[in-house]
């Protein structure tokens, strides 16, 4: 039973990360109908921001300010910088193509992804950067229930993931900006005619989605320690899968999809074999698509004729 709970904790933690990245992916798709393949690379940039914050304050073994403050700065700075990077990408790469055939922004998104990966390679080099989290957050600072270990970083990731997901849900359903985002997602032209500033709303969507990816990047750095220019690829792929399983464009779907994939990965590795994890995960994706082509929470698009 302890093994089951250990795998569950591992799965939920990883799933929370996937969910955060998938949320941004899904938000952008919901508003622009754009598969932003550069989204995973924003996560990578966030992870680098977190790494450099640790270095600025003396490195993991000799932080010059209290750890909670470093963590706060890491998360806030990553959210802001990556959020604005997302806005810049939307402004200069996607907006000019808003009325172009849908293949054009898709190819642009792939181009932006390669651009970010290679820009990071040029700026930061190819070597792995390591957070060394255990040097400033001890493994013993977590919870031990029987033989199930939940360390402090996992707890932090779970709590932050939960807070961010609930916060985003409230923002989208209870605020004026959320209402504008839903209106633009529903019908961009009608929203514009009703006086909604569509450009600003789309920019805000990119900011929020990218900021979440930035925060997820810092969390990944704290959890998995290593950062390279390529970590966004797998994260982006998993987030895309999570968004599709949950129903692309649906925020609760992205959250559920992320958690499902994280937990499924963990249990398949634990109870079947790590050899078949990806095979079974993507088999699961195909099964979900066959049973519900729009994903778990997706709605079929109605076309007026």
């Amino acid at each position: 039973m302890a093994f089951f709970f250990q795998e569950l904790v591992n799965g939920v933690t990883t799933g929370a990360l996937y969910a955060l990245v998938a949320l941004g992916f899904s938000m952008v798709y919901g508003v622009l109908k754009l598969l932003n393949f550069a989204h995973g690379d924003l996560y990578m940039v966030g992870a680098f921001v977190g790494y450099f914050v640790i270095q600025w304050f003396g490195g993991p073994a000799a932080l010059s300010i209290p750890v909670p403050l470093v963590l706060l700065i890491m998360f806030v700075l990553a959210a802001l910088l990556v959020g604005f990077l997302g806005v810049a990408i939307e402004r200069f790469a996607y907006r000019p193509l808003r009325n172009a055939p849908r293949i054009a922004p898709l190819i642009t998104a792939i181009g932006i992804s390669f651009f970010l990966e290679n820009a990071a390679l040029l700026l930061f080099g190819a070597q792995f950067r390591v957070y060394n989290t255990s040097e400033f957050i001890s493994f013993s600072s977590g919870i031990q229930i029987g033989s199930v270990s939940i360390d402090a970083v996992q707890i932090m990731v779970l709590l932050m993931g939960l807070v961010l997901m609930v916060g985003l849900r409230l923002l989208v359903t209870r605020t004026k900006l959320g209402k504008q985002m839903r209106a633009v997602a529903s019908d961009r032209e009608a929203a514009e005619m009703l006086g909604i500033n569509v450009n600003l709303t789309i920019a805000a969507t990119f900011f929020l989605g990218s900021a979440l990816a930035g925060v997820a990047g810092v969390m990944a750095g704290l959890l998995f320690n290593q950062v390279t220019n390529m970590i966004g690829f797998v994260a982006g792929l998993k987030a895309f899968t999570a968004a599709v399983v949950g129903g692309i464009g649906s925020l609760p779907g992205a959250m559920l999809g992320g958690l499902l994939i994280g937990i499924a990965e963990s249990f398949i590795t634990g109870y079947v074999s790590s050899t078949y994890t990806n095979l079974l995960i993507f088999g699961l994706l195909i099964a979900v698509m066959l049973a519900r082509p729009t994903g778990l929470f997706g709605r079929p698009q109605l076309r007026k004729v």
Partner: protein
Amino acid sequence: MKAYAIVATTALGALILAGCGSSSSNNNGTNAAATKCATSIGMEGPLTGPVAVLGQEQLHFAELALATDNTANKTHITLVQGDTQLNPAQATTVTQQLTSNSSIVGVVGPAGSQEVEAVGPLFARVNMAFISGSATNATLTQGKYPTFFRVVSKDSVQGPQDANYIVNTFHPKALMIVDDQEAYSTGLVSVMVPIFQQAGIKVDHESVSQKVTDFSSIVAKVTPATTVVVLPWQVATNAQQFGRNLAQQHKNAVIFGTDGLFSPGTFTITGSDVSSFGPDITGIPADASIVAAATSKFGKFGTFGPPVYAATHVLDEAIASVCKGGHTPTRANVLAAVKATNEPTSILGQPISFTSGGDIVNGKFFLFKIDSTGKYNLIPSS
């Protein structure tokens, strides 16, 4: 019609340009080579992509060797880079580019055994020597690729040596071995597992992609009886994270890493054992100047750079020997010179000459234990 005209004009222009380019490079290559031993060599490695850290290190050491050898031999050899991304398909494309460049007479690389399998026939077709500093799959030197050489030993040496060391040193009742789904890793696993099973050890064989960075789910499967985890991997930071996940879940298993994990400063899990195809060159007095130059230019380095230095040096010396003999370095005579290599010492602390299959003669592996400061200490061979 207008569109067809544009396409036709563009194609014609491209053909003319290509023709000019190729004829000019051919002329320059031949004339220059004849007068001042000027030629080019290729370097294939994962310069970008998930394991760019290894490829960049290899490139740095190739450049360092070339600069040193050009000065020492008064040659003018230039390096043409090819980024394979550790991907056999990409390696094939890069090899086609390098082999079609007539000024290139030999190649250093590629890095991975799976890539060598993909490009071996292409090099054989043009009779061009290619020397890898890290492809260790045992089958590569069984005659399939007659122009292939390597300056490192092979898995059929490393696998049994490492497996027997684990059996005789740790006496485990159960162990976990995790491959990273690449030819290097699966090749070693296929050699080591039968030895473990023959010794009556219960083996849990797991498999995880090189791109994965979270091992908590696999680590959860490490039972109290599992005293050793064998990681035949190429990405040291992954092994470091695996070690952290073990500590996080309070598991006491010892990690044994194969040569791909020999990376002082990166893989530093206390008590782990690591195999290496070469000694730590920072501990070889004769390599002090190379270590100093590499450290000052590129910073920290691991296990992948020095063998590429050795491979580049072999190729440079082969070209220089052809020139000293009064000949123009061509692919055929450079290949013959590489086959005749007989270096009494090398950066790897051992002589370099090749068997008829392209293996280094008397290749061996070294074992190290990591202490609590992260230092790699050589385990004396018994």
